């Protein structure tokens, strides 16, 4: 069953070509593609078939779903979400129980080898009974759904690395999607929650180029995870000048100085919060005066206190392979 092309879908929804070009221009920018590629991106994406997507929410808090679906009006960056064929997402779909599972299996059969699998939440393997859907354990549902998927997008830190359910003592035996499925292309879009625009951009890249974008060693798209929070932090110049807030209400904090000594994990956290920002582009945690917690990194909950510095400034400055330097020369 061939689904319509995105061009047909957009035309039917009254979306002009100009609007679509605007979407392609901003997405190309996010994916670090040159603006000269926008016309080609628009042609390839416009001719792509509307993708079938099966979305499995497992051991999660629904924060990822909230972040992605959001409650306000559809906007430019959600254009792709409005035009995918979301055939299963049991948190938001009207159907439930066997009816919902029938819809999932019908989509898998109709689009065998072509559908994309989105997963949020970790998978309990210590005791599969901790999380079941319609009587089926998460691990069985993941294996069944992944078998004929074209690729998998693990959304959020739980699906990518186990996240908070995996934190010590990991009572449910939580693991990441990539710990179970090893024979399919997987892209991890970590973050607690992840940046919704990163998911849109990965979907666009997949539809346009028929493959996932270049990834880092943790399978995350380099366009979003290639630089650390610290690399693009507006407080970075204060770090270089050794101007630090020592407490949350001292002069340094009031002057907007660097939060490194208050435990900021920005130097070792790779994500695009500092450029893409949150809450409709309002700010990101450091801009609100709080250190980065490092939520897009594996085991962020267990690493150390959120308010303990990574180390002395002199030590950190001399530490090799950090920030943008970490990826220098890769994928070239």
């Amino acid at each position, binding site marked *: 069953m061939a689904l319509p092309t995105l061009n047909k879908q957009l035309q039917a929804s009254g979306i*002009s070509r100009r*609007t679509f070009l605007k979407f392609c221009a901003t997405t190309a920018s996010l994916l670090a593609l040159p603006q000269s590629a926008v016309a080609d991106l628009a042609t390839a994406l416009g001719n792509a078939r509307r993708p079938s997507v099966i979305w499995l929410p497992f051991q999660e808090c629904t924060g990822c779903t909230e972040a992605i679906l959001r409650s306000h009006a559809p906007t430019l960056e959600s254009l792709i979400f409005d035009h995918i064929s979301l055939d299963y997402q049991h948190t938001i779909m009207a159907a439930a129980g066997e009816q919902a599972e029938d819809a999932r299996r019908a989509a898998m059969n109709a689009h065998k080898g072509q559908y994309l699998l989105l997963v949020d939440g970790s998978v309990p393997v210590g005791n599969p009974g901790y999380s079941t859907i319609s009587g089926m354990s998460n691990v069985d549902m993941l294996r069944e759904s992944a078998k004929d998927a074209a690729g998998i997008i693990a959304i959020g830190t739980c699906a990518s690395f186990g996240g908070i359910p995996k934190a010590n003592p990991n009572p449910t035996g939580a693991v990441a999607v990539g710990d179970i499925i090893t024979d399919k292309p997987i892209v991890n879009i970590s973050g607690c929650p992840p940046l919704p625009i990163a998911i849109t951009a990965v979907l666009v890249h997949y539809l346009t180029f028929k493959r996932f974008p270049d990834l880092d060693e943790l399978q995350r798209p380099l366009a979003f995870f290639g630089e650390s929070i610290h690399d693009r932090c507006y407080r970075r110049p204060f770090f270089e000048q050794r101007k630090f807030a020592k407490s949350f209400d001292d002069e340094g904090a009031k002057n907007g100085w660097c939060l490194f000594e208050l435990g900021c994990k920005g130097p070792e956290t790779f994500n695009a919060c500092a450029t893409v920002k949150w809450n409709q582009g309002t700010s990101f945690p450091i801009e609100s005066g709080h250190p980065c917690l490092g939520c897009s990194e594996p085991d962020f909950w267990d690493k150390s206190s959120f308010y303990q510095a990574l180390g002395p400034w002199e030590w950190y400055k001399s530490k090799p392979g950090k920030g943008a330097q970490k990826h220098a020369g890769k994928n070239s």
Partner: protein
Amino acid sequence: MTEELIFMTSNAEKTGNVMPLLHQIRHALSQLIERQEQTTIDLRRLPLSASEEAQLEAFLGHGEVKADIQALGDTVLIESRYAGVWLEIHYNEDVEIMGKYVHICTCPPIIKSQPEDMVLSLSNIVSDIHSLSHQSSDETAKED
């Protein structure tokens, strides 16, 4: 005036990228004049502090053209005081900036009517003229 703008920001807020960027724009403008080569600079990919971005915009200023485009959120297009240098800002419907570019070209592509939209327009105008002519015939018949 240039020097005044460059040193307007405090040292703490400076990445030092404004001056190289201005030279890149100058170079791109000469390429446009000599070889008709267009350039787009994606400002969101460059490390610039908020004050430096404001400084760049103040430097470029406003020229003769300003266009507002409504396409799932506004797009603002401003020709700077330097002809051939355009600032383009894409917003979404929440007025969040989705993209910010400096185009060095005669006319940024987004302002042009798109062939696909024109094809649809032709069919709409045919249908609208048809409706209008029916309406006129009905009114004439009523008058008779």
